[in-house]
């Protein structure tokens, strides 16, 4: 791993917030709570829209309507999840980046899923037609679903095999 990344992780662990969460007995679970609360809004809405693109869900309303009506709170959820995740990461950044599964999640899967999400969000209206969702839309929804499932899978893999001291 590059020295720059390692140095950055050491720095994060020494930041006031890294030290604060690490030294507190109650803050660590509370940050997990913040992370999961944000994820519920973020992934809950994304899964709903992707399933609708695939034809699962309330037929009286289109995927585009659903996507638009959930947009603001979806991104609020993302930033809440990001904040909680960032603080959890700062506690033991070097342990996190030493884990191959976590590196895959942070450096590959999340950026990929995020970029794909932005594409899907922008294109959902174009994919929505009177007779249903176009084939492209269905594939795009399926791919997004699988990308986020892979993010959660990498996270669970990390949860089950990490060397964290504070978890």
């Amino acid at each position, binding site marked *: 791993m590059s020295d720059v990344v390692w140095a950055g992780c050491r720095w994060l662990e020494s930041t006031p917030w890294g030290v604060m969460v690490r030294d507190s007995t109650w803050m660590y*679970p509370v940050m997990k709570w913040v992370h999961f609360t944000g994820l519920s809004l973020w992934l809950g809405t994304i899964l709903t829209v992707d399933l609708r693109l695939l034809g699962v869900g309330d037929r009286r*309303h289109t995927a585009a309507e659903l996507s638009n009506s959930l947009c603001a709170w979806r991104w609020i959820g993302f930033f809440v999840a990001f904040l909680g995740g960032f603080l959890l990461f700062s506690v033991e950044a070097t342990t996190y980046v030493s884990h191959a599964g976590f590196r895959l999640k942070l450096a590959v899967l999340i950026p990929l899923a995020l970029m794909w999400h932005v594409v899907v969000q922008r294109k959902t209206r174009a994919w929505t037609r009177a007779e249903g969702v176009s084939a492209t839309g269905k594939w795009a929804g399926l791919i997004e679903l699988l990308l986020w499932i892979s993010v959660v*899978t990498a996270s669970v893999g990390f949860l089950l095999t990490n060397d964290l001291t504070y978890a």
Partner: protein
Amino acid sequence: MWEALQHAAWVTTLQTTGWLYGLVLVVHYLALFSCVGTIVLLDLRVLGVANRNKPLSPFAQHLRLSTWMGFGAAVVSGFLLFATKAEIYAEVTPFRVKLLIIGLAVMAALAVEWSVARWDRAPVVPVTARLLALLSIVLWLGAILAAVEIPALTGIG
């Protein structure tokens, strides 16, 4: 009873097969995100914070399937995870508190679901509706808090 469950052959298989246990955990997380996220969104809409300019009932219909499919999958996967450590989980207070909060939260969510059509016909969303929605948010977020406190307070997880 919990001892028999934990030592059943299929539970032992689940506990000792890493990828299978991981798979159940992935389902549990995805399902609970889907369930809690959509319930909280509907509550925010009732409170008038989200999507105020659109009617309530269609919004509720949008989310219903994700909410209750998620809930069903979370219960099934949650039971499987519980079974692998049934003896310990059944004994610890934070886990009992979590189940109690979930029970209350489900009642609040169902009460919101059942009343949405009625509230939609009213000129303004009644105060009781807003209180119920607020209670539902507090309970669901409380359930997640109780869940993360289980490993923190008991060391099990």
